């Protein structure tokens, strides 16, 4: 049991640190909840430290905060346009939440809440439902024209419309699975390689150790890129709902 509990999947297990039960629903405060809390605190601390002095010429932390603001703001403006700026706080929150979830999860002995499909699925489903509501409230039934771009010849439409409908409904699945698979694979790989370091010992252990080093760098990159991809795809879906074509 001991060997199994420290296998590559052990890191994904939830530990019920503060058991809570509300009406038969288990909402215990777990290690997952702790890292979600840490993501909030890290984001708050970053922006608190960064904007403490509010100087004309930014300090290092202030320029980091400004850079993030302009990066996400630019992403929303470029992909959705000015009408999309109303959703900028949401996209910024989404980006920071996933970014810190991914990056904090790379610390040894930490927990990656984005490696759990249910977390990603809730985020992706929320975006999917919100985008659909925004689309119908802005364009009414005309929003259905999203499935058939103007100028499509009728014979092509018979093939195109089912494909478009399918790709629309597959969005929350691909959005959540992409992040889940990336986080899961990276962490399992790190854990397995790290296990080889122990089993090979001080001599040949240097080979998997070098691999762990390289993969860790790669995973830092993946952590940032996946947060970006999640936010970017949300922007693209939002653009469909706001600007249609």
């Amino acid at each position, binding site marked *: 049991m001991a060997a199994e509990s420290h296998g590559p999947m052990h890191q*994904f297990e939830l530990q*019920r640190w503060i058991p809570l039960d509300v009406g038969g*629903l*288990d909402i215990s405060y777990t290690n997952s*909840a702790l890292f979600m809390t840490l993501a909030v605190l890290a984001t708050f601390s970053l922006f608190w430290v*960064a904007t403490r002095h509010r100087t004309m010429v930014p300090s290092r932390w202030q320029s980091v905060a400004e850079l993030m*603001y302009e990066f996400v703001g630019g992403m929303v403006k470029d992909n959705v346009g000015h009408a999309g700026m109303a959703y900028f706080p949401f996209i*910024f929150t989404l980006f920071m939440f996933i970014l810190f979830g991914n990056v904090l999860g790379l610390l040894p002995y930490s927990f990656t809440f984005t490696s759990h499909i249910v*977390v990603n699925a809730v985020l992706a489903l929320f975006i999917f439902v919100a985008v659909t509501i925004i689309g119908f409230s802005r364009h009414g039934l005309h929003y259905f024209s999203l499935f058939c771009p103007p100028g499509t010849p009728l014979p092509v439409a018979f093939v195109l419309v089912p494909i478009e409908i399918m790709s629309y409904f597959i969005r929350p699945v691909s959005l959540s699975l992409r992040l*889940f698979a990336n986080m899961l694979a990276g962490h399992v790989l790190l854990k397995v390689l790290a296990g080889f370091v122990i089993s090979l010992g001080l001599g040949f252990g240097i080979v998997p150790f070098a691999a762990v080093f390289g993969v860790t760098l790669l995973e830092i990159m993946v952590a940032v890129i996946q947060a970006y991809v999640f936010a970017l795809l949300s922007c693209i879906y939002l653009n469909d709902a706001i600007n249609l074509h």
Partner: protein
Amino acid sequence: MPQFDPATFASQIFWLVVTFLALYAVIAKFAIPRIEEILEQRARFVQEDLDRAAALKADTDTAIATYEKAMAAARNQARDVMLAATIELKKVADEKTAVVTAEVGKQITDAETRIEKAKSEAVGSIKSIAADTAREAVARISGLSLDAAKIDAAVGAALKDAR
């Protein structure tokens, strides 16, 4: 796989909603307003500098225009003064030239009169000398004593022909 244990879903979803809402509050009510304040302040600062630069440039342009106008006026004035002076000088010069010309003309006329007088005097003397010489020559050659009036007439005619 722990990911597919439905017993943990409720807790994860609950804390996801709670923390995500908390983070949304942090971002929307704290981070974004503060960063926007900084960016707006910077933009305002830069704009103020640009405005000041534009105002200074306008001032410079006005000063240059004023200078150019003053310069053009001065140049015009200088030309007028010079033109007036030239006309004045030309008038004075003309007057002086006229006076001198008249003076010189008078002197020339006087000199010509004097020369004419001297010339006629000289011609008169030549006549009498020629007459004397002629009478003497006639007397020596022929031994004749001719009438003075006759000789004078002959010499006068000869001189007239020679002239």
